[in-house]
Structure formats: C-alpha cells, structure tokens
C-alpha cells in the first residue's frame, strides 16, 4: 500500500538552511548536507530544498549543493527555486535531484509547465503554490516572489483556478503552501486543503502550519493529502520524525517503516 509521506522542507539561502516566520526574518539553521543526511537517517520519506532567494534575485545561483546532497542521501529529494527554463531544470535533474518544483516562473510563463512535462515527464514536475487567505474578500489568492518580502506580490489567480490550470498543463504534484499558517505552528489549513483536494487529481502536499504531532494526523485524515511538509518543527526538534511516524502508524495512517 502506498504510504503517506513525511517531508521535511529545508529553505536554502547561500548554501545554508534558514527558516523565517511567515516568510520573514530568516535565521540560519545549519549546513545543508549534514542536515539532509540526518533527516534521511531519521526516517524522512522525502526532502524538499527551497532556494528561497533564487526566484526573486536576478543573479545566477550556485546550485552545486544539489550534487553534494545526491551523493550522500538515499531517499528522494526535490529542488525548488530559480528554475526558469527547461535547461535550468535539466541541470538540477542531472545533478541528481529527483524532482524539480517551480512556482513564480510558472506564474510568469505557464507554458513552461508543459515544456518541462514533455522534456522530463510529468512525474518530476512539482508546482509550488503560495496561497494567501484574504480576509477582506474571503478568497484564497496566489502570491509570487514570496522568497523576498520586498518583492512579494499578489497575482491575478485565485488558488483553485491555478490548481486546475497547472494540472491541465502537465504538473505531476502540487505543494500547497498556506501562507497565513506558515511558521506559526497552529496546524495545517484543513479547510483550504480539503477544498483543493477535491479538484486536485495529482499528489497534493500540505505545507504551512505544522506545530503539534496531531496536526499531521488531522491533515492526512481530514484533507486526504499524500504528504505533509514541515520545517521548523523538525529543525527545532519540537517533533521527532521517528516518533511522529510511529504515532501516525498507530493512528492507522499508512507509513513507511524503516
């Protein structure tokens, strides 16, 4: 039976793992490679590395760390940030990444999703979506350039419409980051995830809000997501991955045993 995935997310800036609250005030957590190895050994099912500076800076970003990760870990990993073309994606995959995730460049050029699909196959094309709940309008809205608060901006997309669009264009997986919840550890946005689940026919990964061990059980049971992504609870050792997976297994959620 296909297991649900626990996915630590490592935000990367200048080769270091960082974490901010609500996308701001980034603090350095540690070096990438030892942290990646540590998570793989602890039972993480997959890792995501977001190069959070890449999409918002115009400069060319050094991605040599991708190859260093591929050398040491034996679980799948996805690289996000700064991938703007079929060539960019090819380089990351050639360095050993299993999947590439695009966010702002897909919003700027939705055709890129189809080009990536045709070049590398649907299975390695992940679309990251930063979704913000607008209390004034009661709508979920897609934001871009969220790696840099001075450039973060709302797009014309409502989240559900963009989720439908990226699937049409060949996305293989969607990571839905609920911005209002990010880094505040009050639980995943179950209302939004449940709504998106109904229209998402590719794997859906919940992101933003994990704080307590039961938040993971809630999101798998109530929103039926395929994976749950979290950062600070793992980086700050608030939740131990092995204990989390045992807990979820006991809650009858299918987990890979290591």
């Amino acid at each position, binding site marked *: *039976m*296909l*297991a*649900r*995935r626990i996915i630590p997310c490592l935000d990367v800036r200048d080769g270091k793992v960082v974490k901010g609250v609500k996308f701001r005030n980034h603090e350095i957590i540690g070096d990438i490679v030892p942290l990646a190895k540590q998570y*793989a050994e602890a039972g993480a*099912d*997959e890792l995501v590395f977001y190069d959070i500076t890449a999409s918002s800076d115009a400069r060319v970003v050094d991605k040599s760390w991708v*190859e260093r990760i*591929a*050398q*040491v870990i*034996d*679980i*799948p990993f996805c690289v996000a940030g700064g991938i703007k073309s079929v060539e960019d994606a*090819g380089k990351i*995959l*050639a*360095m*050993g990444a*299993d*999947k590439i995730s695009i966010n702002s460049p897909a919003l700027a050029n939705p055709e890129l999703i*189809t080009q990536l*699909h*045709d*070049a*590398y*196959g*649907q*299975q*390695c094309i992940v679309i990251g979506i930063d979704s913000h709940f607008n209390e004034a309008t009661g709508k979920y809205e897609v934001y871009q350039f969220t790696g840099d608060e001075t450039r973060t901006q709302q797009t014309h997309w409502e989240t559900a419409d963009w989720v439908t669009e990226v699937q049409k*264009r*060949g996305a*293989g*997986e969607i990571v839905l980051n609920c911005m209002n919840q990010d880094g505040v550890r009050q639980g995943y946005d179950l209302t939004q995830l449940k709504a998106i689940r109904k229209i*998402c*026919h*590719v*794997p*859906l990964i919940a992101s933003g809000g994990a704080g307590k061990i039961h938040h993971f059980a809630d999101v798998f049971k109530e929103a039926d997501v*395929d*994976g749950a992504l979290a950062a600070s609870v793992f980086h700050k050792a608030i939740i131990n991955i092995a204990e989390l997976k045992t807990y979820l297994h006991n809650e009858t959620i299918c987990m*890979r*045993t*290591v």
Partner: protein
Amino acid sequence: MTAGSSAAIKRQNIVIIDTGCANISSVKFALERLHVAVTVSDDPAVIKASDKAFLPGVGSAQNAIASIANKGLIETIQGLTQPVLGVCLGMQLMTTMSQESGLHSTDNVLCLDLIPGKVERMQVGDLRLPHMGWNTVNPVNPANNPLFKGIGNGTYFYFVHGYAVPVYEHTLAACEYGTAFSAAIHKDNFYGVQFHPERSGDAGAHLLENFVNL
C-alpha cells in the same frame, strides 16, 4: 556470494549507459555509496566491454528513445549479453512499446524490445496519478529470484511514475496501486525495476548489491 555487506561485492567493470537523460548521477552515487566504481559512457565499445550495465532514465519515453537513437546506441544495447538493469523509465524502455508520448499525443512509442510487453497509462480509479511515494513490493518466486534475494514481501521501495507494465509472465516482482502492476521485470540477461533503487534507502542498496553480484 553474500549480499548485505559491501566487502562482498565483486570487483568488476560496471557501466552506466549515458542515455542523455537525467538521473544518471543519482544511480552513479548510489553505486559509489556501495564502494562500486562505475563508468558513465555512451561509447559502444565501453558499453559492450562491461561486466554489468545500467540503463537509467527519467523523463518521457519519446524523448529518451530519441536521445538513445541520436547517440546511435539502440543496436548496441540490443546486442548486450551481460546483465543489464533498467531503472524506472530505463525499465520501460526495455519493453516493446510505450503509450507515453507528449502531453497531447496518443501515438505509441517504439522501445528497445529487450523484454516483450507494453507500457500503459496506469488505471487507478479515484487514486491520484502519478503514483508517487513509497509502496510495498512482493517478489514472485522468492526461492529463485536472485535480484530480490533477501528482500521480503512487503518491502518499501520509492516509486514515481504514471505509466506501468501490467503483471505478466516476465514479472519479477509486483506492486499494487489501484491495480497490480510489474515492479520488476526480467528476460534472459535483461532486468528492469519500475521503482528507484538509488532512492529507496537500505532496501534499494540491497537490490543494487544483488544485481552487482549476479
């Protein structure tokens, strides 16, 4: 020979066929973690002279076959007599044909025809596609299955694919997602695995070691 310790691995000439697709380095790194030296090559002479060869692949069947054809490697691969392991798309390329072409195309792609069979879009009902994540694999005929030696029923491997080969006479291990499909296939010297052993933790390392020790 004994699987399970890297010291038991035989010294030999292992070549990863450079298909021009991605994921070549992840297979190479996985073998290097087992202390197996590997060469990546698209030179027919180097490939033919190997003791074991890997046929890696990610991406779409159409692009991969076109890339192999451009490199003039189709006949080279078809003529190999040493053990060859196809991984993920590499396994699918070993079959007769695949349904996986472009997003808006329905033409079959002709593959290498090393193992009879057809790659089809997975039919999974209400489940999500692609099939992505860790799923349990059941080897068939465990008493005589050297590739899965020491790998028990229900072992988790990492999958990421939307197309698959049904279960049939060349199935070496099965997996289920909506319906049963081939997690591994085999004919003569050709072996293929749908999952990614290079990304399947200890179980994947064990399988790679079994292959190197064939």
